[in-house]
């Protein structure tokens, strides 16, 4: 615990220090980076020690804020969610320091490091807070700090727009959370989390209402459909390491909130599982479809966050299904898979965002159609990006497969053993996962293939250069973790055991039983994958021996007899995705702009598509237009005269006074 407090102190002090020394870019950078890295390192040690010992550490003291108390606690669940926070804070700080060393950022370094450190500290407080007031304060600081980080390049109009959308949606979510905590607090009599924990019986029939409120409030942060609209706006606007931090860990605080809520609410039902799986399935499939339609790498990755949050929801849904039907193996596999995917997604998504940053840095564009052939020019970035792409598709032997396999296994256990009504959610989960898996492969072969393979499609791409070491090795660390978690898969249940026990009150014996089963399975899988690697190595050696001493020629790609192909004739990202998108044209609209070439010797013709977010355009935009129209009626209140405003205040005060005295 002391380490966590120390980490918070270091981050805050370093942040403020960095802001005070903003006149000197060197000093502010060193302070900000050093504070974040050392704080993260200390915190990491603290979190790991709690994970290892399994004994929660807490600190409770009173606070003068009404209903507030300064209660913090580090238990297994918090420690687990802190792992990616510290990991990514440290790596993003190292990466960011180098990324921001371009002169155009010099004047903004101070505020950047202030908000960066504040964001890290507030995420830590959100996860360890044990009082609703403290939690909401930290939640709000987190939202504001990330807002200022997103709008770092605030002179660009697109960034402003993204910032506003983010600010509005995060506050709407927070408003729902206020309501959630007030309702919960009024039932249990206090706003301390400890009292929520024991309030299970008091809540009774309102549990479902609370569950839905939590889904909306926390879901907005997590980015589930239909409240995901801020994600694809905010991530491309922010600098890459901020996107990595936000997509990797900040949206996971939403998941943390939902898991915490599940601990408080007793007796989940099959309908809850169906809700979670329904949301997860829709988010997953819609997320990956919209990702497939994007031409901007960072928007594409942002939509993949929506998809992966969907996968996490599928896992949680299977876990809830296990609780509702009293089937321990489902609980263990579902929650285990879902939570492990939280960690995994943090790792590979951060890896991919850092890769996107390197692409932007090296090739000065994130538009897929202007890239190509970057693997030859940026071998490190490209290879690491490939690792991230394979991992996010959930392919073996990397970490994504481990968590997805656990969710699959849990859902198949449900199909095997539950009655028809309870099996339906799990069937939906399997089908959604399968569809997501297939589409994700399409999407990431597109992203990797178009950007890094083939020939450069623009001048910038052909002049691209590899990034500095400080922007490469954070990627290497993350890629190594992807591989490591994949290879050490049998150990993951051991790590998850205390967390699962905390989320689902199960007999330890039952859990151990299921755990042992999973561990054996995972061990076999790792064995099979080693065999596969061995086979690949064997084939490589065989090909090498076969080819020694034979003719090996370098030539042009088969061009079907056409002698003058250019790089622009390659398949583009849009054409690669077109067959799939055409099939779902009813859901994902692709407005086209098409100028037809005219005459026998046409001079110009053009074709372009864009992909507006279907939910934003069809649901939110009309809704906000209606709200605007209604609110316009109240415009007469706003006269601009300060006297009148003071009158309003006075009236309000008097009304309140009378109301209270009545």
């Amino acid at each position, binding site marked *: 615990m002391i380490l966590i407090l120390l980490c918070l102190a270091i981050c805050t002090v370093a942040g403020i220090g960095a802001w005070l020394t903003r006149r000197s870019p060197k000093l502010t950078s060193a302070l900000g980076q050093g504070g974040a890295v050392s704080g993260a390192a200390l915190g990491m040690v603290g979190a790991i020690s709690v994970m290892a010992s399994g004994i929660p550490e807490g600190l409770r003291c009173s606070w003068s804020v009404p209903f507030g108390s300064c209660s913090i606690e580090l238990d297994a669940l918090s420690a687990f969610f802190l792992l990616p926070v510290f990991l990514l804070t440290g790596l993003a700080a190292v990466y960011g320091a180098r990324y921001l060393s371009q002169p155009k950022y010099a004047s903004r370094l101070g505020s950047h490091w202030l908000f960066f450190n504040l964001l890290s500290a507030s995420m830590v407080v959100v996860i360890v807070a044990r009082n609703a007031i403290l939690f909401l304060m930290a939640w709000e600081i987190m939202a504001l700090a990330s807002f200022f980080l997103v709008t770092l390049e605030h002179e660009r109009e697109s960034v402003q727009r993204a910032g506003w959308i983010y600010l509005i949606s995060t506050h709407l979510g927070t408003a729902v959370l206020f309501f959630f905590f007030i309702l919960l607090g009024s039932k249990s009599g206090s706003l301390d989390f400890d009292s929520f924990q024991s309030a299970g019986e008091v809540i009774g029939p309102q549990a479902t209402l609370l569950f839905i409120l939590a889904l909306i409030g926390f879901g907005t942060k997590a980015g589930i459909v239909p409240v995901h609209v801020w994600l694809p706006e905010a991530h491309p606007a922010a600098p890459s390491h901020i996107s990595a931090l936000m997509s990797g860990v900040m949206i996971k605080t939403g998941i943390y909130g939902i898991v915490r809520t599940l601990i408080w609410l007793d007796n989940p039902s099959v309908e809850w599982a169906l809700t979670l799986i329904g949301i997860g399935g829709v988010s997953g499939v819609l997320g990956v479809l919209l990702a497939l339609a994007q031409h901007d790498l960072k928007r594409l990755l942002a939509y993949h966050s929506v998809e992966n949050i969907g996968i996490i929801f599928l896992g949680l849904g299977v876990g809830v299904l296990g609780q509702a039907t009293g089937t321990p193996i489902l609980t263990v596999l579902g929650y285990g898979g879902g939570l492990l995917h939280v960690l995994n997604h943090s790792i590979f998504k951060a890896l991919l965002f850092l890769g996107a940053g390197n692409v932007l840095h090296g090739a000065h564009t994130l538009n897929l159609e202007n890239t190509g052939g970057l693997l030859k020019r940026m071998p490190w970035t490209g290879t690491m990006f490939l690792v991230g792409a394979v991992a996010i598709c959930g392919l073996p032997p990397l970490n994504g497969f481990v968590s997805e396999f656990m969710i699959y296994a849990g859902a198949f256990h449900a199909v095997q053993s539950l009655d*028809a*009504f309870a099996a339906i959610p799990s069937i939906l989960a399997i089908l959604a996962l399968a569809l997501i898996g297939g589409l994700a492969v399409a999407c990431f072969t597109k992203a990797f293939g178009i950007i890094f393979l083939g020939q450069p499609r623009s001048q910038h791409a052909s002049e691209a250069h590899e990034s500095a070491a400080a922007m490469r090795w954070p990627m290497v660390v993350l890629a190594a973790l992807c591989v490591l978690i994949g290879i050490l898969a049998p150990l993951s249940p051991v790590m998850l055991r205390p967390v699962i026990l905390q989320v689902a009150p199960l007999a330890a014996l039952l859990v151990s039983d299921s755990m042992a089963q999973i561990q054996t399975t995972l061990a076999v899988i790792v064995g099979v994958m080693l065999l596969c690697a061995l086979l690949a190595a064997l084939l490589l050696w065989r090909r090498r021996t076969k080819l020694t001493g034979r003719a090996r020629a370098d030539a042009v790609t088969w061009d079907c007899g056409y002698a003058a192909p250019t790089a622009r004739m390659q398949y583009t990202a849009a054409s690669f995705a077109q067959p799939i998108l055409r*099939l779902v044209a*009813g859901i994902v609209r692709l407005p086209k702009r098409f100028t037809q070439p005219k005459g026998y010797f046409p001079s110009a013709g053009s074709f372009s598509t864009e992909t507006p977010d279907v939910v934003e355009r069809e649901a939110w935009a009309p809704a906000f237009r209606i709200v605007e129209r209604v609110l316009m009626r109240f415009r007469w209140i706003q006269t601009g005269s300060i006297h009148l405003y003071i009158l309003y205040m006075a009236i309000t005060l008097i009304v309140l006074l009378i109301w209270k005295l009545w």
Partner: protein
Amino acid sequence: MQDLLFVLLILTGFVFLGSGRMQFGIRTVALQGILLGLIPLLGNLQDLWARLTALAVLSLAIKGMVLPYFLTRAMHKSKALHEDNPFVGFTASMVVGIICLGGSFWIASRLPFIDSSQPKMAVAVSLFIVLVGFFVIISRRKALSQVLGYLVMENGVYIFGVAFAVDVPWLVELGVLLDVFVAVFVMGIVIFHISKSFDHIDTDQLSSLTG
């Protein structure tokens, strides 16, 4: 064995949703009629065998032969060989069909008055077929498609009747058959006349008749 028939009926539903060729659609509906005729024969006949056999033969004759012949003629006369531009595409229609299938099984499992003696499957399939017919009527443009949709819908109602054959007097059954026959007859005449006076049978163009 009856299960197999029901499965085949579901499949005809999907085939019907997924195809745009009129001739094919007519044949599918005819096949559906024949399958329907077989259902009561394969079930538990008991002492109703005479009644049920008569019903089966009648429905085979009307739905499997008379109506298809009549419809094919109407198709050739009105030159509506293909559903060109439906409101909902054929692939999307099948996806809707999958959802309808799920929904009807769910409803069938929830209906309170079905005891275990009646086959739950029959209720689910009948609901599904009714929904398919309904959806086709809504989503297709050509009048002939709508007649086919109507027939499919009626087939669904018939399955429901067969599932509860014990409770339904056969006069009602006969009445339903007759009803269909007359309805299709009337619709056929209407189609023929529409196509004669307007050169096409797109029903969504009928609104141009209003002042």
